[in-house]
């Protein structure tokens, strides 16, 4: 019984193409959205408000990166016409989350060669925005120092890797499972 299950597992087509396709597409989307929000912040006039046009973008793109798992399971189910269990859907989603993280990191590293000043300009724009805030000088300076440190940290590869894999991994695992349920074909029922 266990052997036949194992054989069935081995006979299933590989999910790596689906993981790669969805990871690449959502990695590019996620990176592009973060790039748009950074350049919008750079080019915005300092208003002194912590939320601006970039937050508006955030409202629309909220949770976008979590849907890679669903795309991957849809691709797998459509491409191979193979049965898709919840566990397999969850695994495909998890790996898609990892793939999205890796693609995003690679693109952000490449972009640092294309526009090496972007991070510094972004930090400057954010600092200018904080300086326009109506706050006591000491508190303002404390916020600025912490912000600069946090923004530099945001472009640290290891930080991007662990946060990305953790969050994109978990959320895509869930959407992968939902995708398996929506798009997957059920296995033939062998029970009486």
């Amino acid at each position: 019984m266990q052997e036949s299950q194992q054989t069935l597992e081995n006979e299933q087509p590989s999910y790596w193409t689906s993981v790669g396709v969805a990871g690449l597409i959502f990695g590019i989307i996620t990176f592009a959205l973060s790039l748009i929000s950074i350049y919008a912040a750079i080019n915005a006039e300092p208003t002194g408000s912590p939320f601006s046009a970039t937050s508006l973008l955030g409202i629309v793109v909220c949770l976008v990166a979590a849907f890679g798992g669903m795309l991957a399971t849809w691709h797998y189910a459509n491409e191979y016409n193979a049965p898709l269990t919840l566990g397999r859907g969850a695994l495909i989603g998890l790996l898609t989350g990892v793939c999205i993280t890796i693609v995003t990191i690679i693109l952000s590293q490449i972009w640092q060669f294309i526009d090496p000043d972007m991070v510094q300009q972004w930090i400057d724009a954010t600092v200018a925005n904080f300086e326009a805030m109506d706050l006591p000088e000491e508190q303002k300076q404390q916020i600025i120092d912490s912000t600069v440190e946090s923004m530099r940290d945001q472009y640290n590869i290891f930080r991007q890797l662990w946060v990305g894999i953790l969050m994109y991994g978990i959320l895509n695992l869930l959407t992968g499972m939902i995708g398996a349920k929506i798009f997957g074909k059920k296995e033939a029922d062998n029970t009486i």
Partner: protein
Amino acid sequence: MKQQVPLYLLILALMLFIVTTALGGGLFNQSGLWQFEWQHKIFQNLCHQNTLRSFWINGQPMAVCSRCLGIYIGFLAGWLLLPALAFIEFQAPSDVKTVLLGVILINLLDIVGNLLGFWQNTLVSRLVLGWLMGWTPVLLFSRDFFKSKLESKKDHHARITTDVGK
């Protein structure tokens, strides 16, 4: 497909982590600047984290907006209720996918209507709509993790019939 308890428990643990993190530093009485708390950093790329659109605990905004909080809490609540749904032989709507699509469209409509100034949504309305969006997909799994009493009876009956046949 039945009795996939390890997968159920894994998702439960992950969702508990997500919801606890989403509640932000206020839950643990953290005193630093909220922007730099690890909870906020973790959700940075997943939510706009606008403090005006988030609930606050102990003087600190949560790490996600009220709609995202609703989604996570809705999913967790639904997940916790899955064993009970099987026990009471709950019949999910025949087409959960259509219901899910409807809930997503309502949320999109709410976002667009608010952006265009047709109406003003509130923290609670966003929480409720988010909660619906988190809760609905769980209905897809109402028969996947635990056997309902009805199904157990069917299995029992099938076994007896098979034995008689032999």
